[in-house]
């Protein structure tokens, strides 16, 4: 009994020690991540990280472009995203009311880096067990998808 208590205490101590080390690792990681986050420019914070490095504005919906975007969306995005409900990924019905076109395009074109470095993408990503995949859209196709999402967000 006594021995088992001692062993138990030792185990706890060791676990604590390991825990401490693990903790410090986490701290280091968090610091590193903060540094990365701090490295993001104001533009990147708003518009995401990736190939789209200028602001994209949508004044009036181009219905032709939106239609093309819908076709691309159905083929490449629709298996994971619905407009009105959470599915594999978040619902996108009102997405253009909360994110900029460039942000959404960067999320489509550069999901790996976005999920690794961008605080918003990371935060949303953490709510879903399946990571967003890169579906190899061209920039033009991603632009069309955004047009479609803008239409759906109206």
């Amino acid at each position: 009994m006594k021995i088992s208590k001692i062993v138990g205490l030792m185990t706890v101590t060791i676990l604590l020690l390991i825990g401490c080390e693990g903790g410090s690792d986490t701290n280091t990681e968090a610091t590193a991540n903060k540094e990365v986050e701090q490295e993001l420019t104001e533009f990147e914070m708003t518009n995401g990280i990736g190939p789209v490095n200028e602001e994209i504005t949508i004044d009036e919906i181009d219905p032709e472009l939106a239609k093309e975007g819908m076709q691309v969306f159905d083929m490449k995005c629709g298996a994971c995203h619905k407009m009105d409900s959470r599915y594999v990924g978040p619902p996108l019905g009102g997405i253009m009311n909360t994110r900029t076109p460039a942000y959404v395009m960067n999320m489509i074109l550069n999901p790996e880096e976005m999920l690794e470095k961008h605080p918003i993408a990371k935060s949303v990503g953490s709510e879903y067990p399946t990571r967003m995949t890169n579906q190899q859209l061209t920039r033009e196709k991603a632009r069309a998808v955004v047009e479609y999402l803008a239409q759906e967000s109206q």
Partner: protein
Amino acid sequence: MSKMLKKSLLWPFAVVAAIGFLSMGCSSNGEFGSSSDAAEKVYVAPGEHDEFYGFFSGGYNGQLGVYGLPSGRHIFTIPVFSQAAVNGWGYNEETKPMFQTSDGFVPWGDAHHPELSQTNGETDGRWVFINENNTPRIARIGLDEFRTQEIIEIPNSAGNHASSFVTPNTEYVTAATRFSVPMDEDNLQNMDVSIDSYKDNFQGTISFIKVSDEGHMNIDFQIRMPGFNYDLSHSGKGPSDGWAFFTSYNSEEAHTMLEINASKNDKDYIAAINWEKAAEYAANGEGKMIPGEHYRNYIDHEEGGVAKSELIEEVRVLDPRELDGLVYFLPTPKSPHGVDVDPSGRYIAAGGKLSTVIPVHSFDKMMTAIENEDFEGEEQGIPVLNYESILHGEVENPGLGPLHTEFDDKGNAYTTAFISSEIVKWDVETLEVVDRIDVYYSPGHLMIPGGDSQNPDGKYLVALNKITKDRYLPTGPEMFHSAQLIDISGEKMQLLLDFPTEGEPHYAQGIAAEKVKENQKRFYEIEGNNHPHAAKSEKETRVERDGNEVHVYMTTIRSHFAPDNIEGIKVGDEVYFHVTNLEQDWDVPHGFAMKGANNAELLIMPGETMTLKWEPKKVGVFPFYCTDFCSALHQEMQGYVRVSSEDSDVEVSYSTGQS
């Protein structure tokens, strides 16, 4: 006391011996291939790539193994002539037609000699061809996707050993019958005759398969040959371009116990074929078209990668007895096996299995002898050239049982000696043996990257050994065959590495990695998916009944199938799961396995559609799932099919994500 004295006196000797042994171990180049020097030469650091791709025939596993060199790492297996349950090759509806032959569906093959396509006498990284020895066929594998893209059957052939070797611009792939069989005089149809009528009735054929720029194969012509056994081949190059050389044995035309009865003659023949002339004859409509049913099976990329079978009913046959200058026999001792043309194209080396020398013929001398009609006779209407007139020379003392020769870029030849288990290096000009190295054991072919082209990379040699005993951890009576990597960059050959290979590798081909790796497909664009049963979005997924056929149009993406609940299937239905992988990401295939299916799984590449046929035999609810670990939720990637009785009135219905 005297004993102790003896011991203490002997000590220094022991130390000297030990030091001697150690130092020998460090500097030796043969048995001590595991020295750190050798290890360094084959070490490819994590994340780094090998310098060469090696394509090793799988022999009786019917496939093509891909190895990285110098590491010897097995990096892939390409299914070719045998069904492969691992990815459904030959089991799924898209690839079953690839196994169509005039003998019906043949799900196994004996893959022997891979050959890389060439341009200007150099390997070009477009395709690998490989022959099937048992049911005569030749496959073309595209190196853009490492997949078999076409298989053509060879008619009027019984065994297809002397293939698949290419001409310097891949104008033709050659093939010759291993076994001669009785063929009627007019149409070469196999006959029901007594086997002991061999000499009267048995004939052989040599085939030339034209390859288009896109890789499509068709048999341009066949040449009728005497009833020998045709063994191996290589095409001429440089000055000898336009010719192809085929070894034969059994010029005795024996039909039983060939070990004795086909080993009687001092010399058999290498058939030298002027294919350029033959091609001209064929183009001019010479010879005659005869019945020769054979299948050409190919993956139709225009139509979604679904294989098609095309039956071709006739073939053109040229007869050397009627057409001048087509074929000459080069007498060659003794039961020659390999025939190899050196990079300069001037010399033709034979491997006389039972010969004590390696005979090397000179192409120049052969041409002079033909010009001068310097014949020692004829064999069934084909001129036999004078041995002494065409000989460049004989390599003396080349080891026992010389089989195959490859070449480096420094004027050296390397021949496997099967019986004495060694590789013998000799100088092509002087014919002197300059080095030899033991291999373990019984080497058949050997390979130097580009070693049968006009531009060898003379850095490594791979010996393909038939016997493996004691080289690796034992695995019962059967062991993988052993390949051995030998450094040939210096004057002395140095054994670097042993590695096991699948099946029974015969020949292999090697090519610099950069000629191949830049052209790799990483996924198939879903927009370009022309499969007739593709569902290119989750919106297109559905289940349709047509009589007792049910077609399920399904999609997969990490980590779900759509639909994943299907009802209304009945016992006795034929259910076709057409599964489209919507991923557009490199190296993310999805699997599809159906409980109780009588075939195999599907492994569907990103952007592709594959079809599994399932005939449910029992009532109940049956799961299906993804076999290829694809994401954290891979295990959740599953679905159910409800199977009702034959007379049930459950309607077809399906859903995804409804609860």
